[in-house]
């Protein structure tokens, strides 16, 4: 167990260094931030050079990278070129909104998928089952941002039930969360259905039935618990897709999260903010995946980590 954890942490550090290197280099290929920042004032060459020195962009890129890494380890990701505030705090300010959206989408998906998946498995072959399978496949087949736009057209523009953009109370969260969570809901429903069907044909279910347990007891205590194992794997993998999808959804709904921040920051060549966001999102993703793997051992005692 501890060996496993140490190995995973070691890999994670390696992955984070790789990611920081990639984002560091690619963001520098997008263009010169100095010309962009000073484009209004008709700057002289000295102004430009002075600005580069201030932003630590006058040194060779490998030196810049080593400096960046040395500071980043202490939590200092530099200051935003645009806002002059520390990049990390800028990203951290926006992070709760993104996590709120992602978790809301995940809750929507789970709330839809669990009843539908179980009903579908129990009533296998019926018209109800067919309907659930078709609906869940349609959920997977839609681009999430398009569903968002359709929801805006229906519930925002025509019916005027919900606000079309921005953030505030729960009603601002409903449409983005449904848009972001629908594909995951479809995936989970399909997965839960097939994994329930697998489990329901197992011997211990027959035993449980034979010893006179009620149908509901068998479903919840015996079947669902074991059917959850594959669902858990997918949840971990899908979390990354959700975070990526959140970037587009945030731009559709003007949701004030990291996704919107980073898209505008790439446009503004705001290197420190882009670097901080990508690395922070990667840290979250790696943490979630590690937690999911640890959770395995709890849900399925047969699994040991090494």
């Amino acid at each position: 167990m501890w060996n496993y954890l140490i190995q995973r942490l070691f890999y994670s550090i390696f992955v984070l260094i790789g990611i920081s290197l990639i984002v560091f280099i690619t963001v520098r290929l997008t263009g010169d931030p100095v010309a962009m920042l000073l484009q209004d004032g008709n700057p002289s060459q000295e102004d430009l050079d002075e600005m580069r020195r201030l932003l630590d962009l006058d040194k060779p890129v490998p030196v810049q990278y080593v400096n960046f890494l040395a500071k980043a380890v202490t939590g200092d990701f530099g200051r935003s070129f645009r806002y002059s505030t520390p990049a990390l705090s800028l990203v951290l300010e926006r992070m709760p909104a993104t996590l709120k959206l992602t978790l809301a989408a995940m809750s929507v998906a789970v709330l839809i998928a669990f009843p539908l998946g179980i009903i579908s498995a129990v009533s296998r072959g019926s018209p109800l089952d067919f309907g659930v399978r078709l609906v869940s496949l349609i959920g997977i087949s839609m681009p999430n941002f398009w569903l968002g736009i359709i929801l805006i057209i229906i519930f925002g523009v025509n019916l005027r039930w919900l606000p079309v953009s921005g953030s505030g109370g729960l009603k601002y969260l409903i449409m983005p969360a449904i848009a972001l969570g629908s594909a995951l809901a479809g995936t989970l429903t399909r997965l839960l259905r097939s994994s329930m069907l697998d489990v329901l044909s197992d011997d211990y279910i027959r035993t449980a039935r034979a010893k006179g347990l009620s149908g509901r007891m068998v479903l919840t205590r015996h079947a669902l618990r074991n059917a959850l194992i594959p669902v858990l794997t997918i949840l971990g993998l899908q979390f990354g897709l959700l975070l990526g999808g959140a970037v587009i959804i945030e731009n559709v709904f003007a949701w004030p999260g990291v996704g919107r921040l980073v898209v505008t920051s790439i446009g503004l060549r705001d290197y420190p903010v882009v670097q901080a966001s990508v690395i922070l999102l990667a840290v979250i993703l790696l943490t979630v995946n590690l937690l999911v793997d640890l959770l395995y051992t709890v849900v399925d005692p047969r699994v040991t980590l090494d």
Partner: protein
Amino acid sequence: MASSSQANSAALRAELSASQAAEKASRARSRQRWRRALLSLRRDPSAIFGLIILSIVIFAALFAPWISPHDPGLVDPLKRLLPPFWSEPQGSMEHILGTDAVGRDILSRIIYGARISLSVSLISVLLSSALGVSLGLLAGYYGRWADAIIMRLVDIQLAYPLILFAITVAAIFGASLRNLIIVLVIANWVTYTRVVRGEVLVRRQTQYVEAARVNGCRDGRIIRQHILPNVFSSILVIFTLQVAFVLILESGLSFLGLGVEPTIPTWGSMLNEGRNYIMTAWWLETFPGLAIMFTVLGINLLGDWIRDVLDPQLRID
């Protein structure tokens, strides 16, 4: 000398006829498998539904110049934002699905868009499967440092928010068809690599690979003859899933303005152009999105069937 060459050629002939017989048998087997697959297709209404949808889309893509009612690029300022035909009084059968903000016919653009969207997905999935499968074979078969390096690349790729990578690449090289394909290839090789590596690790331990190695088969031959055919069905299943996934991803990238040049109609770029008109002209967003949804649904329905046929262990029902 002569007798030895005679013996050689006899042995060669025998080997040849044996391999021909084997080939014949394998052909018969594969014919039988196809017949079984087609039979199961007839019994599977959702797969047939998927096949019909896909046939329509592919037909539209192939014969776009003949079936589209208008020139997809024809701008007509007098016919801006016409609604679809059933919406009185402006709608008419001349523009069945209406027109966009500069008066171009939506239906024609969707038909032409099928060409670009489908070919972008197919090309990028073909390229990423080639890359991903090669890397997976390399990692699984040779192990050691090749495995270590490739799998760490996989980890990095999986933890890097793909959409942000795509936006950065588009900011570097600009939005174009070629760059879009490059981004999509980089985005999707990982899945193949992971699955193929896993399968190779299992196959490498099997007796028939062991036997081939003892018989002096070279690595290339073992991979081609004994390993690739066995991982082929997994690759095909991922392939169909990926075509569907890439269609959606492409639309997302195009929606953010990172897709193709603005003159080329793709379903995603149509969604991007329509987003400023959602308050007034709902049809700009609705129809291209429906085109994406139905195409992806068709691929997914067919994909479920392909998985059932090829890999009974993965059966969902």
